[in-house]
């Protein structure tokens, strides 16, 4: 009797064209990274959706928790001086 397994899970990230950031597309099951890349190509880029693919073992990804999003991202909430429109400049344009 063979062991019934669908192999480990890999998260798939696609780069749509050269120079732009990679975006999460979904995941695939595969026994190793080579097959994960091939499966990712067959599942997520049958119509030239990608110029490059990353696969990462799902268990290697750490995630912040949506329930704690409020307190987790809180440090950025009161720092509007990080945006240029916080500053009042006398008529000078830098563009």
């Amino acid at each position, binding site marked *: 009797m*063979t062991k*019934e*397994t*669908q*192999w480990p*899970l890999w998260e798939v990230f696609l780069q749509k064209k050269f120079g732009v950031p990679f975006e999460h597309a*979904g*995941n*695939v*099951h595969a*026994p*190793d990274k080579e*097959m994960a890349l091939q499966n990712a190509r*067959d*599942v997520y880029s*049958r*119509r030239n959706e990608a110029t490059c693919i990353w696969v990462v073992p799902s268990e290697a990804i750490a*995630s912040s*928790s*949506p*329930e704690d999003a409020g307190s987790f991202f809180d440090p950025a909430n009161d720092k509007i001086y990080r945006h240029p429109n916080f500053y009042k400049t006398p008529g000078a344009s830098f563009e």
Partner: protein
Amino acid sequence: MNQQELEKKFQDRIDKGEIIEPKDWMPEQYRKQLIRMMSQHAHSEVVGMLPEGNWITRAPSLRRKAVLLAKVQDEGGHGLYIYSGAETLDISREEMVGEFLSGKAKYSSIFNYPTLSWADMGAIGWLVDGAAIVNQTALAKCSYGPYARAMVRICKEENFHHKQGYEILATLMKGTKEQREMAQDSVSRFWWPSLMMFGPHDKDSPHSSDLLRWKVKLFSNDTLRQRFIDRTIPQAENIGIEIPDPALKWNEETRHYEHGEIDWNEFKNVISGRGICNKERMKARRKAHEDGAWVREAAEAYAQKKVSKAVAV
């Protein structure tokens, strides 16, 4: 928070149109209903490869053959997108595939009808994928993020499926008398089963009220069925195909087509395993799984060999 408060907060989020993500709190029934719907949907995509796979070797031209191959490959991909989405609900791929192969899980009854002629590749693309697009476009706005995102991706690809099917029928309808009869026969066989794809009438649909309240479904079965009919009839008229429903007529007041009664006994029979191809489909699916066992084993052995080599170095 107690259970009641959690459920109220959940419903408030749904009512505000928020999207539920895998790690968010959700009622157990919401999770269970989604697993049921998504796994059935994924199994349907996978079984859907069989009736069309049947015609790949007999496609009438190289162009049609390449198209059909691409379409069948898409169906496999669609199954995988939805399995991926369902896995975020704490059910493993092994468990879903296991329930499918054991016959415990259901799939869409439409795939238990045989594909008897080449024209069936046209009717399936036009009617079956047409109905699927109406369903899936609605699901693309459902409350569960991973399901909605899988649907967006699928809908984009489904349009090609729909169009190539309509093109097959349109071409046959411009052909010889035999070809026109073949197209008509196919549509006559697939029309009613396509209407059944939307499920029972609203008053007889057991899961509908919860699913609507949770915005897993955004429209009722009858609403979506009506949308499909209204959209499809003008396309039938365009190519001179007749819809096998003598009661079908346009209602000027409601601006909708009225249709005859659906044979729900047939629907129940096919769903309960007494359709024409139920046994054949499950047999083919199990055989494919068993025949692929050596590939899975070999790939795994190779992966392990590489791991142990890397350790040795």
